[in-house]
C-alpha cells in the first residue's frame, strides 16, 4: 500500500495507525511563523470505532490503509455469518458479527448496505439511511391520535425497538432512520 505524506491528508483518507486502519475525519495544519509545522488530525479507528486526535510533523509520511467501501445487498444469516452479494458480479462476501455490530438490527433482505473492506475482509457494515420494517408488537393505541405526542415503543421483526406514534399498529410496516434509530413515517404501499 502506498505511503501518504501529511500534505495529502484530508477528510476521508484511510491510513494505518497502531496496526489498525483509520479514517481521517479532520485535518488541521498548524504552523507557527517561526518553527516546525504540524498536522493535527482527528481520526476514527475503523475496527474499534474509537475517535482520537493525533499530531504529525508536517512532511512525515504514513502508511495508507487498503480500505474500500463497496455496496452490497444483504442476503441472509446462517447464524454465524451475514452474507452479502454484489448485485452486478453476484460475488458473495460473508461478514462476521463483529463487523456487523449494531447494524444487525437494521439488516433487511435485499437492502443495499455499504460494506467496508480492509485487505478484502469486511470490517464494518453500514445500513441504508432508511429501512422499512414490520412491527411485530406494540400496545394498541387510541384511534384518531395523530399528534404523536409521546408515542409508544414498538418491536420490529429484527428485534429493534423504536418509539412510534400511538396510531401505528402491530403488523404495519414503518420507515426508520437508521442513523438516529427514530421512526420516520409509515411505509408507502
Amino acid at each position, binding site marked *: 500500500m502506498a505511503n501518504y505524506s501529511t500534505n495529502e491528508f484530508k477528510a476521508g483518507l484511510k491510513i494505518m495507525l497502531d496496526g489498525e486502519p483509520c479514517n481521517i475525519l479532520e485535518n488541521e495544519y498548524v*504552523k507557527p511563523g*517561526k518553527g516546525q509545522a504540524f498536522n493535527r488530525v482527528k481520526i476514527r479507528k475503523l475496527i474499534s470505532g474509537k475517535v482520537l486526535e*493525533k499530531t504529525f510533523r508536517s512532511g512525515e509520511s504514513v502508511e495508507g490503509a487498503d480500505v474500500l467501501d463497496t455496496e452490497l445487498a444483504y442476503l441472509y444469516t446462517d447464524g454465524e455469518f451475514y452474507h452479502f452479494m454484489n448485485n452486478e458480479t453476484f460475488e458473495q462476501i460473508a461478514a462476521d458479527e463483529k463487523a456487523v455490530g449494531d447494524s444487525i438490527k437494521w439488516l433487511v433482505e435485499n437492502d443495499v448496505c455499504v460494506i467496508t473492506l480492509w485487505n478484502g475482509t469486511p470490517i464494518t457494515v453500514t445500513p441504508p439511511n432508511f429501512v422499512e420494517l414490520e412491527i411485530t408488537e406494540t400496545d394498541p393505541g387510541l384511534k384518531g391520535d395523530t399528534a404523536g405526542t409521546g408515542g409508544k415503543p414498538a418491536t420490529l421483526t429484527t428485534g429493534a425497538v423504536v418509539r412510534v406514534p400511538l396510531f401505528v399498529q402491530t403488523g404495519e410496516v414503518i420507515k426508520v432512520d437508521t442513523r438516529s434509530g427514530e421512526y420516520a413515517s409509515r411505509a408507502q404501499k
Partner: protein
Amino acid sequence: MNDWQPTSSHDSRIARANLLRSIRDFFYTRDVLEVETPLLSSGTVTDEHLDGFHTRFNYSQDGKPVDLYLQTSPEFAMKRLLCDQSGAIYQICKAFRHEGEGRWHNPEFTMLEWYRPGFDHHALMQEVDALLIETLGTDTGEIVSYQDVFKSRLGIDPLTTTDEMLLAKMADCNIDISSPEKLDKDSKLQLLFAMEIEPVIGQERPCFVFGFPASQASLARINTQDSRTADRFEVYFKGAELANGFHELSDASEQKQRFEQDNEKRRNNGQTEKPIDTRLLSALKSGLPQCAGVALGIDRLLMLKIGASHIQEVLNFPVSRA
C-alpha cells in the same frame, strides 16, 4: 467545475480595500514612508522551518543562469533601505512560503511590514496595538512575557525546563505525536505553545507575547538583561498569530553566524542549504540604525475584521484555484 470562481465574497473585497486604505492613513499620519522592494531576490531565508519558492533567471548580466527566490518576507531588502538612512518605512506586499494550505495559511499571502528607527520592541508593540485599535476597533492589548504565559498556562518555566518535562507535559495535554524523540526542545515548546496557549490567549483583546527563548531569536537581539531570551514578540488575537516583531539584530558578524548555524542545521537534517543574502550582510556592516520591525499578516487581519473562519473567504483565488 466552477473552480474559475473566486472563493471570496464581494463584501470581503470591499473590506480589504477599506482596510488597506486605513492602514495607509495610519502610517501617513505617523510620517512612515511607503516603499517597494523586489519580490525576487538572489538571497533567501536560511531558517530550517521556512522554504522559499525559487526560479531560474536566464538573463543575468554575467550570462550565467542564477537562482532567484520569491521573498518569504521583505525583511532583508527593507533593512538595506534602513542602512541607507531611509528612516521609518513600511511596505504592503506579497510574501511566499513553500508550505501547505490551512485555515490560516495560503502559500502566497499579503504582508504588512514596518520598521521604526529609534524604537525598541516595547515601543513597537505599542504602535502595533494602536494599529489594531484603529483598524479592528480592539481594546488595548495585554502584554505578557513568554516565560510568564508559559508558567501561568502550563506550570512550566520554558527557560529552565528539560526535554523530559516537556514530553511529560505533552502527554498530560493529550498531545499524541508520532516519533516525539525526533522533536528538538524548541519544537516541543512551539507545539505546546501552538496547541495549549495560542487557542486561549488573546480572546477578548490582542495578546502581545515578548521575550521568546534565545534559541528562537530568529533576527532579534538577545536581551541584554537576560541572555536566555530574545527581544522578539508575537501578537495573538482570537486564535490567529497575527504579527511577529523584533528589536532588530544589527551586528553583521552575529547575523552571519546565525545564517551559517541555520545552514548547518539544514545540512544535518538532510535539507538543502540556502544562499545567504550577502548584500544584507554588507549593509549591516555599513551600519543598521538601532530599530525595531514587525511583520503582520493582512489576510489574517482581514479575517478578524470580517469574522471569516477560513482564509479562503478573504482571498479571491487561493492556491488551489490560482
